[in-house]
Structure formats: C-alpha cells, structure tokens
C-alpha cells in the first residue's frame, strides 16, 4: 500500500499531507484523479448506446407496436429505445469536446486480465468445481494484478480457498460445484 506496485517507488506522502483546506483537498483530488476522456471516447460510447437504441427499436418494431388504444408488446420498448437513440445522438453532438468519464491508461490493461480471469473461472466452474478456479483466480489477482510476492500470493490464495470451502461447502452447504 505504501509503494507503487507498478514502479515500486515510494508514494509521495508529503503531497497527501499538504492539503489542508477543503478547497485544497478538492483540488488535490482533481489533480490525482485520471484525466477526463476526450471527444473520441464520447463519440464511441454514444455510438454504442445509439446503436443499442436503434437495434432495440428494430427488434421492438418486429414484436408489433399495436396502437395507442391497444399497445402491443413492442410499444413500450420501442419508446424507450427511441429515447436512448435520440439522447445518444444529442450527446454525440453536445459532448464532442469530451470532458466526462476518464481516459483509459496503461493500468486499464489490468482490467482486461481481470475480466479474462473471471471468464475462465465461470467457464471452469461447472466442469471442475470451484476450488481450482478460485485458487487460480486468487493467485493471478494477487501476484500479477496486485504485485504480491510469489510466497505471499501462494499462501494467501491457499488460505482463501480453504476458508471459502469451509464457509460455502462445509458450513452453509450451498450448491456450488466442488471437487472434494
């Protein structure tokens, strides 16, 4: 916690202590926080939500809109998909300078690995139970995503899996698939 896992540099504790007033603190948070994402991120994000809206409209249309007197199953979804599409189009224009959200950084790749490890966990769970996937997931998150040492990652992963087995299998008797 006291060192930057990526670079190993000690954290600038001095900077943290400097902020005295609420205003300084807010300014510091702003400086510490990631840069807002730009216009391209806004464009891509709103094109995705806009496309979802348009797809939703087409699918709803196919379900049948009915009439105002007798609305069909597609009536309401069509209306909300239309709202999503129109607002997305508006936001593409209004947000063209960016300013919302956060830039993706080199640290964002950690999330890719995180999601991948979750997907592998879900794929393996029904096949070999939760023990081995949990062990792998803990180890990967501790060692490669968390910067723990080989030793502590191994020990803590084993402890975590043992504790989960005790809680979810032995004590609570949940239906979670397990090997042993």
């Amino acid at each position: 916690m006291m060192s930057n896992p990526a670079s190993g540099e000690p954290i600038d504790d001095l900077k943290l202590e400097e902020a005295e007033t609420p205003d300084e603190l807010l300014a510091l948070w702003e400086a510490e926080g990631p840069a807002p994402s730009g216009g391209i991120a806004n464009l891509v994000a709103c094109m995705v939500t806009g496309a979802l809206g348009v797809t939703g409209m087409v699918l709803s249309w196919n379900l049948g809109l009915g009439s105002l007197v007798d609305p069909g199953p597609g009536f309401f979804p069509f209306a909300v998909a239309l709202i999503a599409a129109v607002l997305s189009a508006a936001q593409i224009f209004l947000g063209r300078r960016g300013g919302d959200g956060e830039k993706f950084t080199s640290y964002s790749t950690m999330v890719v690995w995180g999601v991948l490890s979750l997907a592998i966990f879900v794929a393996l769970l029904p096949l070999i139970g939760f023990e081995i996937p949990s062990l792998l997931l803990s180890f990967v998150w501790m060692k490669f995503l968390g910067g723990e040492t080989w030793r502590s990652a191994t020990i803590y992963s084993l402890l975590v899996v043992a504790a989960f087995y005790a809680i979810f299998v032995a004590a609570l008797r949940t239906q979670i698939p397990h090997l042993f």
Partner: protein
Amino acid sequence: MDFFAPVIDGFGTVLEPGNLLYCFIGVLVGMLVGVLPGLGPSATLAILLPLTFGLEPVTAIIMLAGIFYGAQYGGTITSVLLRLPGEASSVVTVFDGYQMAKQGRAGTALGVAAIGSFIGGTAAIIGLTFLAPLIASFALDFGPPEYAALALLGVTLVATISSGNKIKALIAAALGVFLAMVGRDVFTGTERFTFGNLSLGDGIDFVIVAMGLFGVGEILYNLEERHRASAPPKKVAHVWPTKNDLRRSSGAIGRGSVLGFLLGILPGGGATISSMAAYGVEKKIAKEPSRFGKGAIEGVAGPESANNAAATSSFIPLLSLGIPANATMAMMFGALLIQGITPGPLLVSDEPELFWGVVNSMYIGNILLLIMAIPLIGVFVKVLSVRPAILAPITVLITLIGAYTVKNSVFDLVLLVVFGLIGYLMKKTGFEPGPLVLAFVLAEMLESNVRRSLLLFEGHLAEVFTRPITVSLLALLVVVVVLPMVKTLLDRAKSTPVSKEEKGLHV
C-alpha cells in the same frame, strides 16, 4: 391507540433472539464490506444480497436493515481514516474528519459520527413511522396514470439530480428500462428479446444486474485505480468523545438530523445534498468559521447526522409510494421484491406485520450500529490495513459464489461478468450505473401502468388532463428534465470545462 398496536407487535417480532442475531450479523458484515475502499453502500448491498435469500421475509429485512446501516457507516470510517469517501454523501466528512485523524483524534471523529448517525437515523425513523402511513393512505387513490407519472418522475429525477452528465444518466436510465423488458411480456405472454434463450425467458434477474454493475464493476474499476497514492490508515485512540466534544457536537447533531430528514424525502441525491447543507449551516453559524477544514468536530457531527437521517427518510417514498429515491434505495427495493414484498401504498394496510417489521428493524439496526461501531473500530482499522491486492480476489470470489447461489445458474454468472464489464466501461465513459439499476427496478411498474393508462383512456391522451395529480407530477417532470437540459446547453455554450469535483467517488 389503534395506530400503535401493530407498531408494538412489530417490535415483538424484531426482538426475537434469532432476528436480533441476523441483524447483528448484518451490521457486522455490512461494516466489514463497507469499509473496503471503493465499495460504497450500493455495492456492499449488491455483494451481500444473496446472504438474505432463504431466510424468512421478516428476518431477511431485518438483516438487510443491518447491512444497510453497517454499509453506510463503513463509508464514514474510510472517510476519516483514509480520506476516501465511500460515497458522495460522506465527502464532507473527509474535510474535518481526516484533519481530526491527523491530529490523533480519529477515534473521537468516528465516535461522534456514530452517535450523530444514531440520533439522525432514529429521529428520521420516528418521522417515518408517522409520515409513511399518511402518505400511503393518500396514495391509495392513485390509479395507473398516477403511478406511471410517479415512476417516470422517479427515474428521471434520479438521472438528472445525479452528479455527472445528465444526458448520459438519462441514456443509462432508458437502457435500464429496456433491459428489464427482456423476457415474457406480462400482458400478452410474448417472449421479448430472448433470442430463443430459455434462461432469458423469465427476464434478467435484478440481483445479477446490480451485483454486476455495482459489485464486479466497482471491483474491476478499483483494480485499475489501486496504484494511486493512498495514505496509510491513521491510528485510532480515544474513541469515546469527551464531554466537551459532545457539548460542541450536540447542536450540530440536532440541526443535521432535522435538515437531513427534510432533504432526504426528496428524490435524487438526498443524503449528499443534506450532508453538504449541514456542513454549510455549521460553518455559517459557527463563532469561528476558520476552524472548519482544520478538524472542527461539528464538521463531522452535522453532516454525519444529516446523511444518516436522509438515508433513512429516503425510505419514506419507497415504503409509501413504492418509488426508490436513489441507487441504494433501488437496491433495497429489489431486495424487498425478492422477499415477495412489494413496497408501496398497499403494504401498510395489507401487510402491516411486514411494513412495521421493516420500520422496526431499522430502529434495531441503528441501535446495534451504535453499540457495535465504537468497540469494533479497532477491527476495521485492521481490515483497512490488509493490502487491497489480497482483499480484491476475496470480494470478487464472494460476489461470484454469491451470485451463483441465487439460482445455481452458470448462465447468471456469465451475465454477472458481462454486467461487471459494462459497469466498468460505464464508469470510464461517464455513464453512471446508478440510474440504470434504478430504472431497471422501476421498469415493470412504469410499463404496466403506462399500458393500463392507455387502455383506461382508450387512446385519448388528452384524458390525462382530467387527473390533477398526474398533471402536477408530469408538470414537475417537465421542470426537472427541461431545466437541467437548458442549463447543460448554456454551460456547454460557455464551454467551461466540466467540474471534476465529484471524481473519485464510488457508488
């Protein structure tokens, strides 16, 4: 005395030893997960929701109340010790709380926060006890058009009052409503957007959406954020406030409680607005305003009483009208639905035992919080000193296994990971997950009442004008949606950079 009979009966149920035990466990795990940096009350509720399944409804609610209060207080602990507010409503606590911690008075700050939270929360529950049945009896005459307008107002208010980009919040809300349409249409029985997938026939489970967006989404986001500088937790000593501390805070606690209660009834950021207002009030009436921001105890006592009072009074619209006022209430709404309890005006008249069970469990949750918070502060400091690299896989595994046990379905886990990724991407691109989850919860009510209204009006939309309550609600809606949009347009025209004040806050 007729009014009090069910209230007293309700206490009998809540005070059964088994129920008290579950409330105790709820407060404990709520605080334990709530103190994990980055996990605010909504995320904590989402992750712990599966714990309450399989319990009797009343017991489950009691446990939920415990988790709710524990999670709220968890955010306070991180504000004071780590300068990391768990959610927007504890941001102002950081100003003086962290300064107090730097001066070695962290214990006092946390102690006063616990006392203030207890008084604010309890005052709000007393208000709720009298006000909620009144509003509910008024709402009994509501028909489909009123409900449709109310649900629409609920969705748009939360979307527009939220921090961040309003249009993006509305887009998220619209997509949330659409997601809830997946599954069988209740009116015609038609399968909608299931693409022939049997698992989607009954729709997407609220729990999975919430656990994915709030739980997994936050955990993934924290994976990326973790490298950022964070101060080590401050040492905690002298938890019991001195007489002088209490004397200084008592006024602030009283004012904060009233302010919080009143502002909390409003939909949207009730707790956030009220904590900021309370801080402002304290600073304004203080003899030496310069002490604020440098460790003034009133700066912790006022906002903490206010945000807990507001968090509690936001149960009023939920329990009397069936409208969740914010993302955390959306979680409570979903949790109650799962227990077969539909919050709304009929609850108090049709199922008084459940209604008063919910209300009374809040009294107990609050008392247990006070009793446990102060002695357990040391334990939470220990939790905070565990490295995030070790805590992260534990929380993600709890979420995965918890989500699996909801229906023993691997498909749900696939959805969970997908929604987790969506939640992360939403945060990165400036879409808040809160409005999506809230809209998802309200969608069924919104759609069925719109369709019923159309049938009722036989297609003549002008009939709306014969219903004064609906018209007033819709007028309010126009004011709420149109005004912020105009403001946004004006702001953009001036091309001022977007404020990042609310950055770094978590759901």
